[in-house]
């Protein structure tokens, strides 16, 4: 038989070592973020000399400067805008499609669904090349169309405001719309897949009841299917929110005006222009991280579930 006391000591030591190990790794996870935050409160001169975590005089004005002069205010609002619009678009479009694939059959519906499935399976690393070409081509066509409608527009508007309209369309409206649609497409396949499997498992009695009561198909989707699929929608919203907020490559290729850029793109622009302005860069990074971190800490259970579900399926 084992000696009870030494066994207990052994076990305690083992537990202690496990805690130390876990805590060290946890520290390496948090430390870069803590350091980023503390650096954002230092001045340009103290940031390289003073390596302490807690700065002597926190420079909160760094955030103000980054927000206004660094342009992070615009980037931040753009990020919010893109994330909100894209996620909303994905939820609507994918739940329509998933509902149709699950309940409302039409010739070729299985083929269409399999296409979305295949899109998740086939990796296409260079797809941003033709996407860029496509977005550029549509812009050209759009501008030709606008130029052709110039005489017609001049009947209502002055030359100056027509020019303004053209510039606005080319630099603001079109890139934003194109980016939004590209991002909706990025999230579409996975969202449709998750929602369709959810709808398939859902009992259809409630929908039948609604149909007998004379509800239209759109009404059933809105009043019955959508409210019942709330858990699946939550997964989709979380997964896509993180995806859109963190997206970089399409933003770089499609958005060239500073005023249309989201945070990730803005960070790179800022870093390219002010290479050595570390405090402001760190303030910008903090601004990028904080919203995601808050959402993550509040919804961590669902986020971990949602993101792993997404990765395992994809």
């Amino acid at each position, binding site marked *: 038989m084992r000696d009870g006391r030494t066994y207990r000591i052994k076990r305690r030591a083992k537990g202690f070592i496990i805690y130390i190990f876990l805590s060290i790794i946890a520290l390496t996870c948090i430390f870069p973020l803590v*350091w980023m935050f503390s650096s954002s409160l230092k001045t340009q001169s103290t940031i390289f000399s003073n390596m302490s975590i807690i700065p002597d005089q926190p420079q909160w004005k760094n955030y103000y400067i980054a927000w206004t002069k660094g342009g992070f205010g615009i980037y931040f609002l753009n990020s919010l805008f893109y994330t909100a619009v894209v996620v909303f678009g994905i939820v609507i*479009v994918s739940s329509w499609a998933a509902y149709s694939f699950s309940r409302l059959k039409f010739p070729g519906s299985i083929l269409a669904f399999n296409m*979305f499935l295949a899109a998740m399976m086939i990796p296409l690393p260079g797809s*941003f090349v033709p996407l860029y070409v496509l977005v550029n081509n549509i812009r050209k066509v759009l501008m030709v169309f606008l130029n052709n409608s110039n005489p017609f527009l001049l009947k209502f508007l002055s030359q100056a405001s027509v020019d303004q309209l053209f510039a606005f369309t080319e630099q603001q409206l079109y890139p934003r719309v194109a980016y939004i649609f590209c991002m909706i497409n990025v999230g579409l396949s996975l969202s449709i897949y998750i929602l369709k499997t959810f709808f398939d498992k859902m009992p259809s009695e409630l929908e039948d009841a609604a149909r007998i009561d004379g509800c239209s*198909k759109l009404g059933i989707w809105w009043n019955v299917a959508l409210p019942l699929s709330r858990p699946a929608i939550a997964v989709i919203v979380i997964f896509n929110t993180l995806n859109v907020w963190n997206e970089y490559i399409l933003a770089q290729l499609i958005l060239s005006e500073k005023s249309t850029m989201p945070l990730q793109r803005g960070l790179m622009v800022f870093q390219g222009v002010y290479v050595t302005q570390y405090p402001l860069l760190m303030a910008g990074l903090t601004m990028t991280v904080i919203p*995601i971190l808050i959402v993550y800490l509040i919804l961590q259970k669902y986020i971990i579930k949602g993101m792993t579900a997404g990765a395992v399926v994809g």
Partner: protein
Amino acid sequence: MNWLKPGKKKIKINPAMTDKIPETAVLKRKMKIARAKSYLENFSFAFPAILIFSVFYIYPFLKVFQLSVCSWNGIDAFSFGKFYTGFTNFKEILRDGIWWRSMWHAAYITIIALTLQNALALALALACDKEIKARNFYRVIFFIPPVLSEVVVGLIWQWIYDGNYGLLNYALNNFGLSNLIHNWLSDPNTALTCVAIVHSWKGFGWGFIILLAGLQTIPRQLYEAAKVDGASSWQIFRNVTIPLMIPVFVLVSILTILGSMQVFILIYTMTGGGPGYHTEVPVTRILASMVASSRFGYACAEGIIFGLVLLVLSFTQKKISERVKQV
């Protein structure tokens, strides 16, 4: 041709009206129209998704193949006949040393991720699987890096590695290891490993979460039974945990391989592929061919070759996992 067959759709007929049923031919036509109308309505639900998907996925997908056999700079008006060059792009890629080096770099990062990152993830998952307090706390902390964007992670770590003001050199100096100090990301010998470590740092939370979920599905009775039989903890690990975890290991390694091969933004933000070409990976090469040298056709051909490599990799992994499941 199963998918072409219409679904079972019943047209309801009021039983009270049966005596007034018109001739079957007329009825059939009416049913046909009703069915077509219903199909059209059903299709309209899926239409927005199919439209977006066709324009932004299928069209680019096909366009990649078309562009890959062309030599086009992205500026001139595109016409297939004018720019068609056959398979010269692919032939050139076969002889492109930088491209194959970038492929090796991706493989190197993948190998580090497979070993270092997954070993760490497994160790953490095993530690958390024991009945410890604050398991959820560690879960939350370890999943912070995967939630962050690659741009953010890249920029933070770029500064940590910085040769002049970086935290790493500062720490080394303070611990009396000043002979190790150097410019981590601009030294060709260390740059790739540094990037791979950051990639593993960002990714181990994934493996940890999935492995922990897998470990927790193992019934506790098995452990207890083994203990009663007098097995040591190593024997339990070797003969109970590992065999039951093999499907999860396969899943994690598939995810790691596919994710690490396509690593890109991290490198783009940290080193931009430099110094020289020492941290180039396939996707940065594709982007460079497109943006820096304006060779859209070449970029597409690179994309196809890389896509095929990924497809083969994931296919083999799936085959292996199927075989493992049978055993």
